[in-house]
């Protein structure tokens, strides 16, 4: 699954740690999502969507 978390984060000038603190996860988790090593579950995907004020589909895109 592809995602644009890194792009959204850098647009807001946030560090990975800041994003992690805002949705109450670890920095490693944000790093793993950004680098495509981990696809988050629904609660975390919703938390990211709320944080960036986007829909889940705007952040995550399934591989074809």
């Amino acid at each position, binding site marked *: 699954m592809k995602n644009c978390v890194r792009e959204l984060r850098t647009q807001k000038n946030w560090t990975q740690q800041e994003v992690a603190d805002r949705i109450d996860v670890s920095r490693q988790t944000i790093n793993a999502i950004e680098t495509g090593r981990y696809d*988050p579950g629904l609660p975390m995907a919703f938390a990211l969507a709320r944080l960036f004020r986007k829909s889940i589909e705007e952040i995550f895109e399934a591989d074809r």
Partner: protein
Amino acid sequence: MSHKARMSRYFLELMGAMALYVAVVAAATRVAPGMGSAGLKALVCVSPMLPIALVIWAIARHFRRVDEYLRLAMLETVAIAAAVTAGASLTYGFLENAGLPKLSMFVVWPVMGAVWFLLACIREFRERRQG
């Protein structure tokens, strides 16, 4: 509870349990040799397992509290460490048949702990490099 608060609570619980373990081991090794009753002596010798149960409880609580990615990463690391330790202990068991000195069962946990620590360091290093 924030991630930082969860980590602080984990280290507090873990360090508390480990400090208790050290104290109980020190007391048990001092008291046990002078004891007459074999049953009571065995109970005193095995008493450090009570704080070890607290250590396991602290780790289990931490697993339940951390986020989903960390939980997966930690469980994967523990699983690989257990598999490596099983392989190493089985290999050494066969080598004992070939004449190598017999080792105490106490060796198993430090080996698994060391492999666990090494794998966690490798994972952290790789993540920092990719980040």
